[in-house]
């Protein structure tokens, strides 16, 4: 094997990084969607001012 013929120098930093990678903690910050009641008004306004669905042109 290649690695057997290659001198491998492992520093304390390498060992620390390895230990950190092996622990795999959970994500620090949650990205959960939050309830936003004030958004209801904006959604309703959007529905009211949105243009109507286009109709099929007649006479063609």
């Amino acid at each position, binding site marked *: 094997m*290649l*690695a057997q013929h*290659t001198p491998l120098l492992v520093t304390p930093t390498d060992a620390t990084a*390895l230990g950190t*990678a092996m*622990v795999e903690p*959970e994500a620090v910050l*949650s990205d959960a969607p939050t309830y936003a009641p004030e958004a209801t008004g904006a959604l309703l306004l959007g529905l009211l001012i949105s243009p109507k669905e286009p109709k099929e042109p007649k006479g063609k």
Partner: protein
Amino acid sequence: MLAEHVERADDPKAALAAIRVVGADAFAPYLLAEAVFHPDDAAAVSQSFAVFPPAVSTPDPPPSGPAEPWIVAWRDWATAALLARLTGTQGDGTLAPRPEGAPTDHTDWQRWSVRMSQLSPLALPALDGPVHAAARAAPLALARGATRAVLRRDFPTATRIVRWLALLHAEGVRLPLDPVPLVEHLRLHGGGPRLALDAAIARRLLGLEAP
């Protein structure tokens, strides 16, 4: 497969470190699929332990000692135990000793489930021990932890917890939620190669992928 990974790597040290990080999951193709274990693969794992040696003594379990070295010690034990099993050298002493203690108190299921996620490489059918007994004793805490992680959108943690649920499902333990749609949901979300590996192992355990 493992030997080839080291052989072809531009940086053999990084390749050996990757074997140590993936740990027992590196043996999943031999346990859950039909990959053939070659002596060179065993040599690659042994060399990864030689280059990055595990702790000489087993650390105290939390709360007596810090959790991180204890988690690493369990993961090292899992890798060493499977290597001994696949090479037929069980009983000759493994490359890493088995740590003391297991996460048995699941009252604080949020923290407990994260701890179990960190021990997810042990969730393989060829391994058994006090950590597995702790998982069998608390399927509800695991289900809560997986659900919480999905809601936090921490998909890697969720997939690691689902590994335990999939193992319990394979053992016939009754679960408070169906792990199949959860695994499919997490797999479709993606999140990198580690999540893909965890999801693939969970799918194998659930019988969603044939060997």
